[in-house]
């Protein structure tokens, strides 16, 4: 028997790692992977809650998250490729023209 809070803490740790990765990483692909890490952390809490509340809807949610993640990966990676073609870099610190 594992307390629900343990699952949630694990999920929180993964999410926080994702946030940290987003903050400290410069490579746009790694940043993207950090987002996936956050999504995975959230998925874990969905499944844990599904088990805890005996509601399969939580697992259904995970599927939708995965679908969205897949769509996001497809579009995001395409954008990354386009950015790389245009600017020859993957460093987000150097892709900062979108401002006033």
């Amino acid at each position, binding site marked *: 028997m594992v307390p629900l809070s343990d699952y949630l803490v694990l999920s929180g740790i993964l999410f926080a790692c994702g*946030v940290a990765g*987003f*903050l*400290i990483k*410069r490579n*746009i692909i790694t*940043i993207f992977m950090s987002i996936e890490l956050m999504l995975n952390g959230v998925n874990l809490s969905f499944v844990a809650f599904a088990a805890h509340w005996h509601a399969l809807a939580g697992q259904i949610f995970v599927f939708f998250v995965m679908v969205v993640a897949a769509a996001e990966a497809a579009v995001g990676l395409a954008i990354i490729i386009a950015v790389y073609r245009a600017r020859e870099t993957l460093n*987000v*610190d150097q*892709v*900062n*023209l*979108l*401002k*006033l």
Partner: protein
Amino acid sequence: MTPNLNLWLIPVLPLAGAAINGFFGRKSSRTAVSTVALVFSGAAFAWALTSVLRFLPSEAPYQEYLAHWIRAGNFAVDFALYLDHLSVVMLLVVTGVGFLIHIYSVGYMWEDPSYYRFFCYLNLFLFFMLTLVLANNYLLMFIGWEGVGLASYLLIGFWFTKDSAASAGKKAFIVNRIGDFGFLIGLFLLIQHFGSLTFTQVFEQIQPLGVENGTSGPLTAVGILLMVGACGKSAQIPLYVWLPDAMEGPTPVSALIHAATMVTAGVYMVARSHVIFERAPIALTVVAIVGTLTALFAATIGVAQTDIKKVLAYSTVSQLGYMFMACGVGAFSAGIFHLMTHAFFKGLLFLGAGSVIHAVGGEQDMRKMGGLKTYIPVTFTTMLIATCAIAGIPPLAGFWSKDEILWKAYEANPVYWVIGAITAFITSFYMFRLLFMTFWGDYKGISVDDHGHAHATHGHEEHGHGEPHESPRVMLFPLIVLAFLSLVGGLVGIHNGFEHFLEPVFGSEFPKAVTSGGNTEWLLMGVSVLFSIAGLVLAYVLYVSKPYLPQRIADSLGNFYEAVLHKYYVDELYAAVFVKPLVNASTTVLWQGVDRKVIDNSINDAADGARHLSDEVRHMQSGNLRSYAGWIAAGAAIVIAYMTWLGVGR
């Protein structure tokens, strides 16, 4: 239970006509526009007639629920219609006279470039007027009330390129606002005290209440406030000033809106609220005094006017005063009776005046007319009937209703009767003055080819304008119908027939009137007829046999005549007392002070502040993805901390 009457069709039909003409009229031919207007207004009349015939066998009011409107707590107002014997009278007058005037307008307005616009407005007016009449609550009635005000404004200012027409429209609108203000406050008081605006609910709660004494009771307050509203709409002292100016509108409009229907809305409203007024004697007295004074006051002004339509306008004000006098003495059915007959003969008078104006090519000054009876015999005949009717010559319509009112007034207080009778005399005098100046004597008009007005009549240029000529048949037909109604319309009042008809509404509170009739009534009737004939004779003497006399009398009266000629300087007084200070205050305080300094400056300061703030804040938009992420993380932390502090999920 009465079968479903589908009353909603009656107002909606003219609305449909207005919509069709308004949206598609510009591109349509005149025939199409007039067909649409006539078909829809005629259909409304026909449907009203069938509905009334199906309704009449029953005594109980008929209600028709259409839709929710406002539901706020216990307070509820619905779109619902109400038909009782009072609304029946109004309904038939509005749709019937309205339809006739539509027909008349087809001829009168034929040459106007904005033909479709006129009929669109006219149908719109019918829609709102019918809403007003058929509403089952004060709020829906108020919608109609405001709507007819709008339609009136649009139609007065129909020739809006003319300065006087535009400002007359504005004047009507603004003066009406003052009355509406009172009306609205009255409605608020009703909500406060009775929690409803539906007629039946309000009246049910009022029925058991006793008669109020003094001025402090809610019913008195409500009554006086409603009277203020009625004063605005029905042009009573002190808010009558807009009606004479409203004559700037096309003549059919003057006939329909400013004589037959809209201006009587105030009377209708007071009669509709009779339950309130009957329990508020002070308010009732106010109604009576206002009505009586207006009747006399307006009549005296009418004596000196030379513009044919202005005379009729003051006459309308005066006649409305009669109606209020009737209501004020508790004779609501008499007031409504006079309302109906007045609709016939005053509508007829206006249409006749329109026909006259049409005949002489747009001229409105009676001094330039004269001798027209040979040129336009049909108009003359119908006008003669109408004049006799309004003057109270038996057995025409006006005699019966006016006599009824005077008799009720005498019963309440002889002073009313005295003033009323004098007014009747003056009325008779100025109406016959109008008739004699217009139709007797020699034609003093010049052969006009250029009439200053952008009137519908400028089509005459095509066939030249030498002699005055009779109007087309489409205009004469309504005249004849209305003349017939003016002739016989009063007969329904014999043996109090009209009162009995309205008994389901006002109750049979007149047994006294029937029993105590006898000699006094006959005597009074005789006196009033005598007064009328005296007016006729005086007018004949002054304007036919000895036409030099009026000028002499005017000279001898001096300043008083000047005052009467200038309508007692009331407009000037209002301008000095209300308008000018208002304009000054608005200019200095509101415009220069509040608008410029406070509002403009605060807006400018806000914009400047926003710009300065943005200058600082925009550094946040660095274009760096990770910085954005940093702000998001910090924001999320703040939200989480706040929610933790609130104890969410505890």
